[in-house]
């Protein structure tokens, strides 16, 4: 397994090397699929823009924007991640063994983000198709303006969960400090238990689907209401 030591090697060179490796595997020109990065020491933008099915293990904590724009790759951080981890992910899997800072998974369009610790504020802000599973708690304003995808929280959620929500599905096992504008609790139906069971298993989360409550959009904010016609 190729190992890159960030105590010695340059970050830009690292990303170039990983991006090239990911493309080569995607185009069946290489079978070098397992990569390791040592001494990340909180550096920014580690393993960003990967576009191919390689697996990258980061041996420590990362700074801003780790695993951003990920496509197909599996990235595991053996520590905590700074702000904006897996931002705008398209597909693939990102696993954070520790905690994630604010706006984890922001604007993500696909793939699975797993945070084994807690996630801070604005987790899944403006998510557009990504699935996010947080084993611990999430902070305030999470899933703000979330459009589609699924956010699963095994712990508690902070203030204003799902404010200005579109069609993303939110599941919380613990308490919700407060719901944001236009976010309401909804009935848990069999198809959601099935969806949850699958996501929890893929995320290695020790929780039962029946323990969760479902939240979603009341659809009052983003749909036109005929009673307001005279205001326009």
């Amino acid at each position, binding site marked *: 397994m190729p190992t890159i030591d960030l105590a010695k090697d340059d970050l830009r060179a690292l990303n170039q090397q990983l991006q090239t490796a990911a493309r080569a595997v995607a185009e069946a020109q290489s079978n070098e699929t397992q990569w390791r990065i040592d001494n990340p*020491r*909180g*550096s920014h933008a580690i393993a960003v823009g990967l576009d191919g099915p390689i697996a990258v293990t980061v041996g420590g*904590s990362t*700074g*801003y924007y780790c695993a951003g724009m990920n496509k197909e790759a599996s990235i595991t951080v053996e520590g*905590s991640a*700074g*702000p904006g981890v897996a931002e705008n992910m398209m597909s693939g899997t990102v696993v954070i063994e520790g*905690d994630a*800072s*604010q706006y984890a998974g922001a604007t993500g369009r696909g793939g699975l983000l797993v945070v084994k610790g807690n996630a*801070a*504020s604005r987790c899944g802000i403006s998510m557009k198709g990504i699935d996010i599973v947080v084993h611990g708690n999430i*902070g*305030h304003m999470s899933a703000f303006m979330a459009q589609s995808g699924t956010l699963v929280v095994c712990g508690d959620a902070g203030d204003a969960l799902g404010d200005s929500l579109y069609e993303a599905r939110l599941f919380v096992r613990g308490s919700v400090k407060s719901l944001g504008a236009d976010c309401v609790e909804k009935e848990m139906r069999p198809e959601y238990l099935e969806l949850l069971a699958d996501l929890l298993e893929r995320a290695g989360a020790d929780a039962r689907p029946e323990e969760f409550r479902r939240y979603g959009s009341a659809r009052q904010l983003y749909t036109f209401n005929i009673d307001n016609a005279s205001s326009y």
Partner: protein
Amino acid sequence: MCGIVGLFLKDDSLSPRLGGMLSDMLVTMTDRGPDSAGIAVYGAETSGGFKITVQAEDPETAFAQLAEHLSAATGQPCSLAAKSTHAVISTAPDNAAALISHLRESHSDLRIMSTGEAMEIYKEVGLPRDVSTRFEIGAMGGTHGIGHTRMATESAVTTMGAHPFSTGADQCLVHNGSLSNHNSLRRKLQREGVRIETENDTEVAAAYLTYRMQQGRNLGQALEDSLDDLDGFFTFVVGTKNGFGVLRDPIACKPAVMAETDAYVAFGSEYRALVSLPGIDAARVWEPEPANVYFWER
């Protein structure tokens, strides 16, 4: 952006290394703000004296014979130790008030950076590494300290606009963010007789905390009060003679990471600032909660 670092020692055996550790942490944060940098160090040895740190544009002229002038003017002995554009004037605590008013009235070529029994503030325009080298921060020992590297938003890039700001003896504050009600709050505080010297938003926050503490609140309570009275974005790190506090506004956009071991409590705008601290791999590392006052005392 701006970058903040702070270090509060619980284990005195690290005291000789305080300046070195703090300085390394601040240099790591250089790309969060290249405009100016500053460090407040709370020295381990206070020896019953009082210190006034002053800054001069023309230190050679301003500091020459200054100690003799001040001793003669106040009638009590004053000594001076110059470091580049800054000098620490030491005197007896009961001479401090007279000395400070004399400096303000008769020495327009000097700016007072800090006053107190333990704290010295060094700050200048420039990069953290240059500022740290210039003032030999790496060689300073102490119990706790706070550093800041600035990307200016609310006032000009000058020495006086650099952080940390001090508005009371042994009190200092650094700030990442921007306050939107600082002008009205500055006017209110000035009407109450509070001295504020710059157009900077952070100085108003520092003065507000000093004012609340003068009214009998402790630092923790004053920080609680600021959640109601300050409008804007902030991550604050504050120091007092024996204490170290952290507060983020309720929105908490401005980043903050803390680490605690048996030997220290450390603050960084990013985890990068903390990675070289001893025992960091085994430290408890967390992000301070929004609108939650954190405070440690020796």
